[in-house]
């Protein structure tokens, strides 16, 4: 009893110290103004930490266009439409998450005015003919003496041909000019569209606005990636809520059925909570931020940690609650083998070179090490024997024996294993892969319809890809963009290109020359006489400020190069050869490529983890046959990934990620079965069975998700756990080598 008491005292100190240290650290971190959680989905993409131009361009593209949004307010009453639009603008702007494009209207007007003699409505200076010049003159006269034109003395003296108005007219015309545009509100989000906070903020504002305005007379359509992201997040939250509830009920039921003790449930909950707390603390010690998706993937920790606890409790149940030291002796070696191999697997994620996976590696490794420590020196001491130990033991053995009778029917298990192997091999020959992000989650039909309405009003069409023109200097980039657009055709542009508003020096000079020779020389004296203009003095040179929206189209890459970005409509014809300084980029393809890259990296990481685990196991057991501890779970991973292919579910990054989780779980099963063979333990089978059941009702349940990434992950786990269980029992099971008759009898 003295030993038990001192063990419990030590356990309490260890547990209290761990919780105190982690809680204090997290309290300090959370009290700082810097955000702890990175919720931007773009953070999971590869970063331009090297000098590869395509990566840098992809990042620039994402940041330039992903945050753009447009709203179309429509209705029969123009004044109501305007009021509704202004109210929406006010709500969004005052929340400081939105910047209206028209906020730059004055700067844009100044830019057009300052550049009126160097930018033409015509595509080239050659098209500004004598006839066009005559029309400019007539138009100026019409506007000065006619009605409907805001001519002031200041404007007329500076711009006697009203070129500013002409340029504004034709540029507006290039953007389309429909009656619907009165209700159009366009701009960009000031925080990342991929951020959950941004999505929630926009959603809240729109809900409030809709409650105020949406009725039979006013409608609203939205365009922007933030709305798709928000829709996807909402669906995911609903699924997580449903699956989470079912999982929780399922796990509680399994634990209460298996152990018949609330204490067991409480201890497992504390173990899981402590491991996650430690994982979070260590990760935030190493990284300044942690991506929220790391926490989602870290849910896998729950399954592994719960398995550790189940092993410890099953060992104690089966052996009439021995003292802590003896209890630890039962599980120490298999638990350590399982821990080392799983840690090796997760540590491999660090080497993928992706921030999020490095965070996951630190989180998982520290969480697993904590669980390994706490199971032995905290959970076991606190797992006090029940008041009626013999009765509890007898009850446990009854349930364990029932399970053993069913699962030890070897022919069925062998047939099952052969079938699973056969299906895996068949799947290996029939597999397909899916990296295309467009197919990860079906786009919401209503949002798509809304996008079409907004695009029509914007005269925009659906964006297909982007033209990126690069140069060592901005001027070189301008020249590259101008020649590329000439190749592609201006009609393919959606919105403006940078050079439409800020052309190259060569184009500016040509425009100035055309205006001087064809307009100013023949008509300036007439303008002075007709309008009574004083003799014009030379304008003082000024450097106009570029409007913010125009600046967004220009990106200085980390390499020092300048990139100009223009949005293009979808076009069927094959793209022309644009030369070395311009390229067409499909941003969706960029994301898909990133996921393909992750799939390869994760597969590689899985392979490396397997090799490391084989070396570790061999060093521990020094027997070739011990490699089955690694090969069984590896075969289960292959089954989890490739068997679903037979049912049309392709291999993806998410199934490989599921495979990594599965590997850790499978090694755990195999290590315990291997040890059971040599030590004659009789609790391994029920222990692994409980672990597999909890994994199936938690992570395996995700296979019912409608979202492909979640479904893919869940199916891999669901099928893989069955494979791991089956292969392990057949190859390493108690009855496999006839070495453990005592255990078999006990069961």
């Amino acid at each position, binding site marked *: 009893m003295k030993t038990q008491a001192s063990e419990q005292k030590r356990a309490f100190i260890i547990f209290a110290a761990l919780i105190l240290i982690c809680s204090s650290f997290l309290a300090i971190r959370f009290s700082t103004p810097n955000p702890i959680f990175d919720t931007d989905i773009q953070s999971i993409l590869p970063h331009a930490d090297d000098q590869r131009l395509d990566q840098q361009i992809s990042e620039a593209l994402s940041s330039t266009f992903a945050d753009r949004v447009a709203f179309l307010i429509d209705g029969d009453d123009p004044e109501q439409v305007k009021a509704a639009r202004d109210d929406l603008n006010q709500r969004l702007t005052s929340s400081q998450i939105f910047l209206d494009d028209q906020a730059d209207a004055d700067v844009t007007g100044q830019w057009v005015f300052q550049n009126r003699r160097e930018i033409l409505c015509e595509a080239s200076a050659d098209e500004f003919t004598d006839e066009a010049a005559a029309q400019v003159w007539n138009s100026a006269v019409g506007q000065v003496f006619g*009605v*409907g034109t805001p001519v002031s003395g*200041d404007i007329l003296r500076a711009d006697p041909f009203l070129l500013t108005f002409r340029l504004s007219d034709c540029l507006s015309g290039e953007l389309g000019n429909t009656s619907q545009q009165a209700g159009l509100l366009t701009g960009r989000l000031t925080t990342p569209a991929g951020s959950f906070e941004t999505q929630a903020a926009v959603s809240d504002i729109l809900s409030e606005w809709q409650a105020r305005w949406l009725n039979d007379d006013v409608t609203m359509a939205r365009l922007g990636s933030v709305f798709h992201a928000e829709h996807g997040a909402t669906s995911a939250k609903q699924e997580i809520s449903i699956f989470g509830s079912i999982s929780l009920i399922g796990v509680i039921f399994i634990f209460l059925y298996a152990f018949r003790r609330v204490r067991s449930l409480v201890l497992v909950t504390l173990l899981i909570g402590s491991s996650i707390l430690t994982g979070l603390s260590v990760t935030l010690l190493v990284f300044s931020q942690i991506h929220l998706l790391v926490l989602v993937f870290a849910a896998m920790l729950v399954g592994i940690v719960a398995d550790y606890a189940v092993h410890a409790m099953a060992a104690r149940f089966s052996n009439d609650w021995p003292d802590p030291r003896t209890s630890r002796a039962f599980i120490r070696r298999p638990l350590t083998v399982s821990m080392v191999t799983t840690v090796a697997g997760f540590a491999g994620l660090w080497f993928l070179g992706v921030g999020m996976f490095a965070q996951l590696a630190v989180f998982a490794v520290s969480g697993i090490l904590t669980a390994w420590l706490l199971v032995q020196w905290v959970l076991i001491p606190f797992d006090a024997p029940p008041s009626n130990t013999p009765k509890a033991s007898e009850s446990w053995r009854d349930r364990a024996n029932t399970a053993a009778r069913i699962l030890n029917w070897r022919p069925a298990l062998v047939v099952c294993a052969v079938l699973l192997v056969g299906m895996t091999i068949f799947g290996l020959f029939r597999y397909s892969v899916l990296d295309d992000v467009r197919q990860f989650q079906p786009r919401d039909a209503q949002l798509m319809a809304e996008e079409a309405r907004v695009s029509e009003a914007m005269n925009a069409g659906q964006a297909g890809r982007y033209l990126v023109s690069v140069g060592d200097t901005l001027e070189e980039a301008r020249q590259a963009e101008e020649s590329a657009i000439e190749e592609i055709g201006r009609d393919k542009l959606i919105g403006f290109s940078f050079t439409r508003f800020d052309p190259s020096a060569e184009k500016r000079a040509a425009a100035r020359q055309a205006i001087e020779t064809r307009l100013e020389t023949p008509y300036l004296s007439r303008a002075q006489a007709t309008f*009574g203009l004083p003799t014009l003095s030379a304008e003082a040179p000024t450097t106009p400020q570029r409007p913010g929206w125009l600046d967004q189209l220009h990106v200085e890459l980390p390499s020092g190069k300048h990139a100009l970005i223009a949005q293009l409509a979808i076009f069927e014809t094959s793209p022309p050869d644009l030369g070395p300084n311009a390229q067409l980029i499909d941003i969706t393809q960029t994301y898909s490529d990133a996921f393909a890259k992750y799939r390869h990296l994760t597969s590689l990481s899985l392979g490396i983890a397997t090799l490391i685990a084989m070396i570790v196991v061999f060093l521990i057991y020094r027997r070739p046959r011990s490699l089955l501890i690694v090969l069984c779970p590896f075969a289960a991973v292959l089954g989890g990934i490739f068997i679903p292919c037979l049912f049309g579910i392709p291999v993806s990054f998410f199934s490989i990620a599921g495979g990594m989780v599965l590997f850790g779980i499978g090694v755990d099963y195999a290590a315990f079965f291997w040890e059971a063979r040599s030590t004659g333990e009789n609790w391994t089978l029920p222990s692994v069975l409980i672990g597999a059941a909890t994994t199936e009702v938690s992570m395996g349940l995700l296979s019912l998700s409608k979202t492909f990434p979640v479904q893919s992950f869940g199916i891999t786990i669901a099928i893989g756990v069955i494979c791991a269980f089956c292969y392990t029992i057949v190859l390493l099971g108690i009855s496999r080598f006839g070495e453990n008759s005592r255990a078999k009898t006990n069961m």
Partner: protein
Amino acid sequence: MKPPTGLVLASVIAATQVAVAETSCPSPETMKPLAGEQTFTQTRTLSGLDRPLVSTGTVTISDDEVIWLVTDPVDIATRITESGIYQSVAGGDETPLHAGGGGNPFLTETGLLSIMRGDLEGAEDHYDRASSDMSESGWDLVFIPKSEALSSHLKTITLNGCTALELITIHQSNGDVVSVAFGDE
């Protein structure tokens, strides 16, 4: 960018032409839409120019459109409709005047279309009446824009008349003054 002064004029004309009454100088509140043709003389006194810019012609107001026809110093036909403003100079093709050239937003966003329909209440959604002076010789109405956007361009619009609108004077925020006198001088 400045407001479409001419359009403001046309709108206000349409609204105030209705102030014709049986008795001398009736209240302008009784305004109703007026169809028909009026001669006008527009004088733009723009800052920094040697002389005022004077144009003359006729304005015709119907339910569907306002046609502003300048005959001197050049032929300019401007047609104002709900769908936009179109202009032809010196017998040339009619072309739309887009937002950059002024017009459309001021039709749809300032309530001027309401005024053109003779709806003075509609005008007062966008303009406050600063003063209404009645005298033996007629009435003077002074309007000031309600919105900051419009008031940054327009300071006041003054209407003078008796049995009919005789003079509109627009004081722009930059000091320019545009006046339109109706009827033969």
